[in-house]
């Protein structure tokens, strides 16, 4: 029972990350490999703030902002749109610098935990859209495979920079809540409930966003038909930025929630991202509920194998992917091919 609980809680986190992966993939066709990294950055940053150390994420965001601004400025100048430069300064320099400045200032201060959490989220938010601007928007129409390769390259670059910014030590933020609940004879920690609750809330939030808001519909439209979106005036680049922003929010949330449970270091996000990706693949990579369920299944599988022999935990999870992929391709090889055709 405890194992199932543990598995579902971890699975909930994987589900959050998997939702982000699917979202970004559907809108931009990018399999965002560095996504898991953001989870670790969020956790490390919160831990740093709690210990009154400056989070390395500040420098990372500033670096990305500078690069993104250069990319944007060059594009604008080459197209002869110099008058749009002030807007670029605002969007790509000032806006991302804002949470950095706040984080810088509050580091030595004794501020409420909630403020630290909000600032951490605000620091994680710009990372994904900035990476999108630097690495993916310039090649938005490239084949999925090229985008994937670029994503892998970005991941390795990020890992290197993250080592410089965060250092090699792991850190663990305080649990968001220390509460323990007893339901019948089952003991549940508040943190577990929080993880579950956040995953459910984020899923419902996404559902409402896509079904009810105009921006959500525009994102879906871009995912379904890019040309169709363009001829009604929706810019795929802006839709992509929104998708990456939402994904960063999901990654940030996951990092805050999983951080107190597992010690993360600068590069441990990769495995989280990979497991979530496997979950998303089990769900077909194009379905939000599918991805969420797949991710929870991975969490459970992992928790049960870890109990029998923790050395095998990763092996089983990734080996589990093989039969799933085979079954999937047998069941709906046709559908998958059709989907790829459309891409």
């Amino acid at each position, binding site marked *: 029972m405890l194992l199932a609980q543990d598995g579902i809680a971890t699975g909930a986190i994987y589900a959050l990350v998997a939702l982000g992966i699917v979202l970004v993939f559907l809108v931009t066709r990018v399999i965002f490999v560095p996504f898991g990294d953001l989870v670790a950055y969020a956790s490390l940053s919160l831990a740093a703030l709690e210990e009154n150390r400056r989070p390395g994420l500040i420098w990372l965001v500033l670096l990305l902002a500078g690069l993104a601004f250069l990319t944007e400025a060059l594009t604008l100048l080459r197209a002869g749109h110099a008058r749009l430069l002030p807007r670029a300064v605002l969007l790509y320099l000032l806006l991302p610098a804002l949470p950095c400045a706040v984080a810088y200032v509050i580091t030595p201060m004794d501020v409420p935990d909630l403020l630290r959490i909000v600032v951490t989220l605000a620091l994680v938010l710009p990372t994904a859209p900035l990476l999108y601007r630097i690495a993916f928007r310039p090649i938005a129409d490239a084949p999925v495979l090229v985008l994937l390769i670029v994503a892998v390259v970005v991941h390795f670059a990020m890992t290197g920079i993250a080592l410089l910014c965060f250092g090699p030590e792991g850190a663990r933020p305080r649990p968001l809540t220390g509460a323990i609940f007893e339901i019948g004879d089952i003991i549940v920690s508040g943190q577990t409930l929080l993880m579950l609750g956040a995953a459910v809330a984020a899923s419902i939030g996404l559902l409402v966003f896509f079904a009810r808001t105009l921006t959500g*519909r525009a994102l879906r439209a871009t995912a379904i038909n890019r040309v169709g979106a363009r001829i009604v005036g929706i810019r795929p680049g802006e839709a992509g930025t929104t998708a990456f922003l939402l994904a960063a929010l999901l990654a940030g949330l996951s990092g805050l929630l999983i951080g107190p449970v597992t010690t993360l270091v600068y590069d441990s996000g990769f495995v989280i991202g990979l497991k979530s990706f496997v979950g998303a693949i089990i769900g077909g990579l194009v379905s939000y509920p599918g991805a969420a369920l797949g991710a929870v299944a991975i969490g459970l599988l992992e928790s049960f194998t870890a109990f029998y022999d923790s050395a095998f935990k990763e092996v089983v999870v990734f080996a589990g992917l093989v039969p799933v992929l085979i079954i999937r391709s047998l069941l709906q090889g046709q559908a998958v091919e059709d989907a790829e055709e459309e891409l």
Partner: protein
Amino acid sequence: MSALLEARDVHVAYGRVEAVRGVSLSLPAGQIVTVIGPNGAGKTTLLAALAGLLPSRGQVIYDGRDLAGTDVEDRVEAGLCLVPESRELFADMSVEDNLLLGGWRMRRDKAAIASGFAEVYERFPRLAERRRQLAGTLSGGERQMLALGRALMGKPRLLMLDEPSLGLAPLIVREIFHTIADLRGTGVSILLVEQNARAALESADYGYVLETGEITLSGPADELLHDPRVAATYLGGHT
């Protein structure tokens, strides 16, 4: 001159093959201008270039402004809207959502969206009946209506229609051309590409004949209708 759209010596190429070779045409505000021609003449290519979907050489002037360096989205923003031959509907979304997104350019104007819905549903009651249905499950005719309706939601000033009657039953073809004539009455200018040359020329003010990427003939639509060269090739012999 009060041309809303003017193309001057426009060239469009796929790789090294030129599909449109030096086309010039002019569309006076408030009129219907049609481009007819055989399969593969370059009509779709021409419209895609005018909409900004394909890069082109030459000059395109819209509303007195050179469109060089203006992307598709900015052209839509300025009221230059395309209904492409391939329709490009949002297949997995409902009819209503497709229409709503058609009004993207008007998104800050709630009243315009509401009146857009009212207008489209009045023109195409079939769409109103099927508002919750997914666009991908519509019949061919309903899809054309939806594509046209989606473009109308953006309140275009210039509507470029690529074969709006493609593959439709005669009764619906008549309905579509009726709608086109009606739109002209409301002040929308229309650039109409058609295989159905007779219907196109009957509803248009001016016509161009495009053959292998070049304009071979042009004139007021009713003159073209009675031109023996057009009659022989595009109107199925005499009458």
